[in-house]
């Protein structure tokens, strides 16, 4: 397999000479040299691309039937559910698709954190990824507002009121956001417009993300640089098949939600039409926002809480410089690996606490978990690089596999 792909047919040659799109796609989607030791944690990139495309296509179709008007939005969603051909299916795919998207993105990020994929020379891939994550949050939040149920309305109220914490200009900014003196139809139409726009911005960033990835190439479970040719295989068919297999498993879980429990990840209050005169008893965001919601509530100060929540996401962008270790993969970082799992447990705990009312033990735990979340990044990450004695790195990505085989062969002989 050479990198210099030559189109074979006359038509392909004609096109490629004028617009080398065939060479581009074949270079980046077919022959792209990929480390031969990637495990299944590397399949989430493809899965996320599938999620984005699914959300865009189902979203376009739903927009054909949805009406962004405070008086008609709720009824138009019910119209989609009851009248539109397969409307129930399309909406359930879209709603659960958002959850599946976040499951995949959290696993994708956890993969990068474990194997040090954010480190030199891949800092920019990671930072673009943080921006994609930020846009995903905004898009998912605005999408949740569109059905104009009770959770939509009061979620929008709570989140837009975060801006009122800004000193001096808070009220002016929230009124500007609302286009009114409260959450109303003006906000709904602008949220619909932005919800429609943002997936395409995400798509643009995804292209930059992949472009930036294809300069140094993939990281790998050993976290060491690969030798092109010796350590790599072409992306197609090796990783296309691996990605498709993972995607099929992912789709089975996805379909399980859509067909068997489409509302389990949602909140029943959102099937009550928005009522500006009554707040539901428990305001809970969608599950994928819960850890950040717990951080918001952990700080006993309005402005402080907002700053903490925003910082919890913003700090991710600085990870490439906060981590002082030269070793990428946690496989060879015995000390940091333990703190890595502590962070994952902490994040899951925050998610659980976000779903509980912020009182008593939950509030205390919430504060401790928030404290650790930030300490991990600003203290643990920079310090461990100096303290830790990493395990010796293999000379090539083949070494761990080969030595394992040798050991197996030896134990086979002795047995």
């Amino acid at each position, binding site marked *: 397999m050479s990198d210099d792909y030559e189109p074979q047919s006359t038509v392909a040659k004609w096109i490629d000479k004028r617009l080398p799109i065939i060479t581009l796609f074949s270079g980046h989607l077919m022959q792209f040299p990929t480390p031969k030791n990637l495990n299944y944690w590397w399949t989430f990139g493809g899965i996320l691309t599938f999620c984005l495309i699914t959300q865009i296509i189902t979203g376009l*179709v739903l927009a*054909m*039937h949805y009406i962004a008007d405070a008086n008609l939005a709720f009824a138009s969603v019910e119209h989609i559910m009851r*009248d*539109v*051909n*397969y*409307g129930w*299916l*399309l909406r359930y795919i879209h709603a659960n698709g958002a959850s599946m998207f976040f499951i995949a993105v959290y696993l994708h990020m956890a993969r990068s954190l474990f194997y040090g994929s954010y480190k030199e020379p891949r800092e920019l891939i990671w930072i673009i990824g943080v921006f994609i994550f930020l846009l995903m949050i905004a898009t998912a939040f605005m999408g949740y507002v569109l059905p104009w149920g009770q959770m939509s309305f009061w979620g929008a109220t709570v989140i837009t009121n975060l801006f009122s914490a800004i000193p001096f200009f808070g009220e002016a900014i929230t009124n500007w956001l609302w286009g009114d003196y409260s959450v109303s139809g003006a906000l709904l139409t602008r949220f619909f417009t932005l919800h429609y726009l943002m997936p395409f911005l995400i798509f643009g960033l995804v292209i930059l993300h992949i472009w930036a990835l294809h300069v140094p190439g993939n990281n790998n479970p050993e976290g060491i640089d690969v030798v092109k040719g010796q350590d790599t295989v072409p992306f197609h068919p090796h990783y296309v098949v691996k990605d498709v297999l993972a995607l099929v498993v992912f789709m089975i879980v996805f379909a399980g939600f859509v067909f068997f429990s489409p509302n389990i990840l949602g909140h029943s209050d959102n099937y009550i039409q928005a009522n500006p005169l009554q707040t539901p008893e428990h305001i809970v965001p969608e599950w994928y926002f819960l850890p950040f919601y717990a951080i918001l509530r952990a700080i006993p100060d309005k402005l402080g809480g907002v700053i903490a929540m925003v910082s919890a996401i913003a700090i991710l962008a600085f990870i490439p410089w906060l981590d002082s270790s030269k070793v990428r993969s946690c496989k060879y970082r015995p000390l940091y690996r333990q703190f890595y799992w502590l962070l994952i447990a902490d994040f899951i705990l925050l998610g659980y606490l976000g779903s509980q009312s912020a009182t008593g033990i939950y509030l205390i735990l919430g504060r401790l978990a928030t404290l650790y979340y930030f300490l991990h990044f600003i203290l643990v990450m920079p310090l461990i690089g100096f303290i830790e004695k990493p395990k010796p790195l293999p000379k090539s990505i083949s070494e761990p596999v080969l030595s394992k085989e040798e050991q197996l062969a030896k134990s086979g002989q002795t047995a």
Partner: protein
Amino acid sequence: MDTKKDIDTAETKVTRRDFLYLTTGSFTVVGAGALVWPFIAQMNPDASVKALASTEVDLSPIMPGQSITILWRGKPVFVRRRTEEEIAEAQAVEQTDLPDPETDETRVQKPEWLVMVGVCTHLGCIPLGNKGEYNGWFCPCHGSHYDTSGRIRKGPAPKNLEIPSYVFLDDNTIKIG
């Protein structure tokens, strides 16, 4: 000659791999089709539209020579109570004079009542009543003339005005659709 040996030569042998390719391919095609179907079908008229697909009309206020236009499936339907002269005129026409030959009898259930979709068969405009060279309808868009039975007589339209399916529930009520 051993026929079994012939089948087993490399070129003709059906392998497990062939079977796997075929089944994988078939499942992919069926799956893709099943997935695409809802995205196509969602554009078809939905249940709320289908629920409005029939309309009942009270004929009692209509005097001979009068006609009303009612909305059915978003389209105008002309209901005309024809005079004796109009009926006679419509029945007297020679079939050879018609671009789209149809007798008046096949276009009505009761000669007095002409029920038809008021959409010009050329490009969808609504023809005007009591107009045109044949004392029937005239389409202002591109000049199609229809007679007292709603049949095309002159102009670019290819077909007679469409007759919707309808039934007389009693002497004074029809149900269209």
